[in-house]
């Protein structure tokens, strides 16, 4: 009996070994007598790093050139040429990757993931436009960003968007930025890259849904100037805030505004602000009360936003592959669905405990709960600050380009009679010297 038991144990051990020892043991690699030599697999090298450093140099040069063209040269034609170059180089030649917009996610991931290091090129792509914006305004949007360029090219019949609609739609960009940070921080997805509407044009191939999305943006972009930049772009949100305090700025008139109103309708992005009168005395008290109310409302909005954001963790956490897998495996384990998916069968093949997966997934969901407080709180804060901004009376004596919204495209320059004088003078001076 003892011997029989031993045999059973031995067989069981052997069988379990067979199950663990993978395929390599199945057919031992032969030794050849005919002098045949095994080839080794080829491993073609990735693109040289040097090209990426060239990208950084081109980016830096384009930013410098764009600043000069917007603030000193003031030539729409030159800005346009630089924009087309950027579209061709960063877009079609370098396939739109890596771009500063997407670099937000790498930076966020590097903050939250200890093991993830940002390549220095990506860090440079993220920081350079921000620094330039702090000095010169949104000159990156004007002529360097390939996504902006492709939309600027199709803008043929601009119609103006009413102010309330513009502000409302712009909130989406803030929500998108918040969601991007949330999903990048949790390591779930790079939302910006996944839903980049124009990258399939740069690749000249891609997912059909994304191609349709991109085509829609371009069709809308014929009438509404740069819809992605104004209402979606999360990097644009950061640039807006930085350009509010920029050292230098785009001015419509080269020197002094004569209030001729000629530039009034020249901006397709609704970034020109009209002069406003003094604060009417009748409005003053009412506005003051409203402002106080809105400021008190601010913490409430932040709390409500955070509460909603956190409450949505079941939905938002599904962006993470592990949570999706755990939910699927749970359904399968409880017999609620028939069959398996690729992911669930891949999971079972690893032999990992189901409980381990559930624990991992619930950890991630808890992270989403915490992240949701920040995400929702951020959205609440943005809405609150928007309300505060609406309740504040701004005094303006001249026609001005709005610091935050101006994309520095240079379209308004030629509308200004002062600019015409400046150009004519310049031309006369050249004529005289010849």
């Amino acid at each position, binding site marked *: 009996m003892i011997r029989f038991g031993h045999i059973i144990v031995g067989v069981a051990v052997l069988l379990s070994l067979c199950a663990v020892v993978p395929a390599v043991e199945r057919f031992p690699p032969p030794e050849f007598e005919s002098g045949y030599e095994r080839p080794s697999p080829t491993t073609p090298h990735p693109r040289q790093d040097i090209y990426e450093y060239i990208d950084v140099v081109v980016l830096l040069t384009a930013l410098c050139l764009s600043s000069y063209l917007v603030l000193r040269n003031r030539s729409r034609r030159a800005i346009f040429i630089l924009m087309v170059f950027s579209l061709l180089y960063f877009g079609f030649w370098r396939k739109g*990757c890596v771009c500063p917009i997407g670099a937000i996610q790498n930076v966020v991931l590097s903050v939250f993931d200890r093991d993830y290091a940002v390549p220095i090129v990506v860090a440079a792509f993220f920081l350079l436009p921000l620094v330039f914006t*702090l000095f010169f305004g949104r000159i990156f949007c004007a002529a360097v960003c390939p996504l902006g360029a492709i939309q600027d090219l199709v803008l043929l019949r601009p119609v103006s968007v009413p102010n309330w609609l513009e502000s409302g739609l712009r909130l989406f960009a803030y929500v998108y930025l918040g969601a991007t940070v949330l999903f990048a921080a949790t390591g779930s997805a790079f939302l910006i890259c996944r839903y980049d509407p124009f990258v399939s044009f740069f*690749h000249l191939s891609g997912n059909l849904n994304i191609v349709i999305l991109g085509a829609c943006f371009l069709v809308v972009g014929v009438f509404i100037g740069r819809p992605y930049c104004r209402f979606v772009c999360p990097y644009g949100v950061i640039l807006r805030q930085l350009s509010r305090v920029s050292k230098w700025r785009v001015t419509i008139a080269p020197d002094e505004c004569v209030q001729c109103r000629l530039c009034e309708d020249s901006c397709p992005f609704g970034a020109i602000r009209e002069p406003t009168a003094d604060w009417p005395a009748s409005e003053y008290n009412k506005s003051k009360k409203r402002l106080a109310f809105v400021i008190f409302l601010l913490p409430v909005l932040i709390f409500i936003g955070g509460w909603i954001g956190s409450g949505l963790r079941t939905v938002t956490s599904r962006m993470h592959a592990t949570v999706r897998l755990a939910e699927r495996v749970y359904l399968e384990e409880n017999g609620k669905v028939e069959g398996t998916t690729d992911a669930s069968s891949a999971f079972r093949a690893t032999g990992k405990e189901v409980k381990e997966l559930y624990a991992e997934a619930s950890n991630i969901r808890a992270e989403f709960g915490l992240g949701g407080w920040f995400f929702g709180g951020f959205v609440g804060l943005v809405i609150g600050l928007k309300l505060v901004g609406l309740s504040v009376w701004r005094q303006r004596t001249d026609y001005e380009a709005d610091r935050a919204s101006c994309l520095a495209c240079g379209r308004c320059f030629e509308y200004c009679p002062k600019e015409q004088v400046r150009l004519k003078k310049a031309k006369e001076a050249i004529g005289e010297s010849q």
Partner: protein
Amino acid sequence: MAESRDNVSRRHFLRDGLWGTCLAGLGGIAGFLLSKSHRQNTVWQIDPYVCVACGNCATYCVLEESAVKCVHAYAVCGYCRICFGFFGPEPFDITEGAENQLCPTGAIKRTFVEDPYYEYTIDESLCIGCGKCVKGCNTFGNGSLFLQVRHDRCLNCNECSIAAACPSGAYKRVPADRPYLLKRVDPVRNNTAGRAPLRSRRFSNGVDHT
């Protein structure tokens, strides 16, 4: 008038202060990124020991013809006469006839070496990275056929579309100077298959430094 001038200077002061804060903030971010950044870029690669050859690589790549191709680790191959990576499930005949082949594009070449051994080579220009042969070889053979991102083709997108669609989490970022995760004969490694913490150690040994 005096009041308005005071107002303007206060506004300027605030703006300059904010500007300085922003600049300092950017400097801080730059410092953090520099301290954490890698001179090395990263590239996408498939961990062949995790890959389940689901076929997403062939369809999800942003390139029309996927950057993922089948690679053959000859050292692992058993040089079988009846190869389950080469022949379909029920071949009519054990010959190279197209009707017997598993590969939809006929990218695998079968050449006689010596009795009873046959060599299998991948014609990369025909391979579409569907992983059918990989599945066959992994299920019934030594698993010497496996999928790899070919870096002469890969665009190295910031978020790889295939990685987003990968069911098993086999896609990962690897340093650009060691861009391939090749299969090698290493019996020690096999006992740790499927355990996540050891997997990384396995790759520090198992990666072919080419």
